């Protein structure tokens, strides 16, 4: 063989040369290449001589001592988010909020919603009680802003789930499926209530949620990049954040008005 290149010698040293035996044979026969290779070995041996910095024997315990409260904190946070999220779908609260929303936004959704989610007797009793329009509006605004905040979190989780290679989005997919159903209701209601701006943002959000919900649980790097790009390009996250803040502000204004009326 010809004299091996420096790159081939490096790969040979690490046992990664495709033509390992040929290089070995050549080094046995060619003095100049052998000298060159020995120089490389000396350099790499010098790198090996760098002492490793060791921690004390109890370092692992120390790491765990510091880590444990952080993990517990995260677990509480995660549990809080999940239980809050799941509670939304255990119908008393959702049914109440949804029904109140329907009252506010018109009769458009009444038929659809009540036929899908039978109300429990306590909820029905509560709904039978007179509720003032501002109180209904407040509950609805709160539900929408909560939904937008959850969607925002889902998008953030999604874009942060990047790892090298395939990206597992199975958890985000479960969340997206749940969010799509609610989002659809709010979007239609907003369109019917003559809120095209809100409806348009909810539509954009729905497109991404549907894509995640119906897509594969594992995305290739290219697929993930394309999804990331779609979330980024229209500034969806920002729009959802702004809309959520607006809704929250309106809800707080309504709450203050209600408090003033009561006092």
């Amino acid at each position: 063989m010809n004299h091996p290149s420096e790159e081939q010698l490096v790969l040979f040293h690490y046992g990664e040369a495709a033509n390992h035996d040929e290089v070995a044979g050549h080094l046995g026969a060619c003095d100049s290449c052998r000298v060159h290779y020995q120089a490389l070995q000396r350099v790499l041996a010098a790198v090996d001589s760098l002492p490793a910095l060791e921690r004390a024997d109890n370092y692992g315990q120390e790491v765990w001592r510091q880590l444990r409260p952080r993990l517990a904190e995260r677990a509480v946070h995660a549990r809080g988010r999940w239980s809050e999220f799941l509670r939304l779908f255990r119908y008393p609260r959702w049914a109440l909020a949804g029904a109140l929303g329907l009252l506010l936004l018109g009769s458009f959704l009444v038929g659809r919603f009540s036929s899908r989610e039978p109300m429990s007797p306590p909820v029905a009793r509560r709904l039978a009680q007179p509720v003032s329009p501002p109180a209904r509006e407040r509950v609805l605004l709160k539900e929408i802003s909560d939904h937008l905040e959850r969607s925002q979190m889902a998008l953030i989780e999604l874009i942060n789930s990047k790892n090298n290679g395939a990206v597992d989005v199975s958890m985000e997919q479960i969340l997206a499926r749940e969010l799509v159903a609610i989002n659809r209701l709010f979007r239609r209601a907003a369109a019917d209530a003559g809120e095209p701006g809100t409806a348009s943002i909810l539509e954009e959000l729905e497109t991404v949620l549907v894509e995640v919900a119906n897509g594969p649980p594992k995305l290739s790097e290219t697929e993930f990049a394309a999804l990331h790009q779609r979330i980024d390009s229209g500034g969806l996250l920002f729009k959802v954040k702004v809309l959520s803040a607006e809704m929250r502000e309106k809800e707080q204004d309504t709450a203050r008005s209600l408090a003033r009326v009561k006092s």
Partner: protein
Amino acid sequence: MMEESDAALVTRAREGDQDAFGVLVENHSQALFRLAFRMTGNEHDAEDIVQETFLRAHRQLGRFESRASFRTWLHRIAANCSLDLLRKRQRHRDEDDAVDLESAEAIPAMQSRAPAPDQELLHAEVHQQVVYALEHLTPMERTAFVLRHFEGRSIEEIGTTLGAGSNATKQSIFRAVQKIRRALEPMVKATP
């Protein structure tokens, strides 16, 4: 008493057993610290990376494939955390002090001091020069080199960690060795 295997501990940790995760932390912290220190060259950063690695691992435990080696998976996360840090560091590096990291000629051999009176001092200088050379590799080169040279990872595994193809990974290792060689060769020749 026989130690519980990583696989068994991972299974328990996935089921919510915090103590099992604690044992994994205790078992792997030392090795992760060594890797992170090789990657960053900074004790404090290495400790932060160890913590961050376990936080990420805990979050992604459900995604870990049981057939794989937990150690390898953990080291891959640590390498990625280190790579992120090296990239941030590179972005923030003061332009005045910046060295053209992509150029193989970029690492000047440190100025030789007065001739070393003894071998120990010469070794110390070699060590210093190794540290200096490693610091002046690009994040990709350093990660690839550390994973290959110190961790013994295959080109394929390193490529997966870096999100790079086999040729790009080989090139990164080769460029790293080339730069280290230029920086060290004059001193290594002098070392008996």
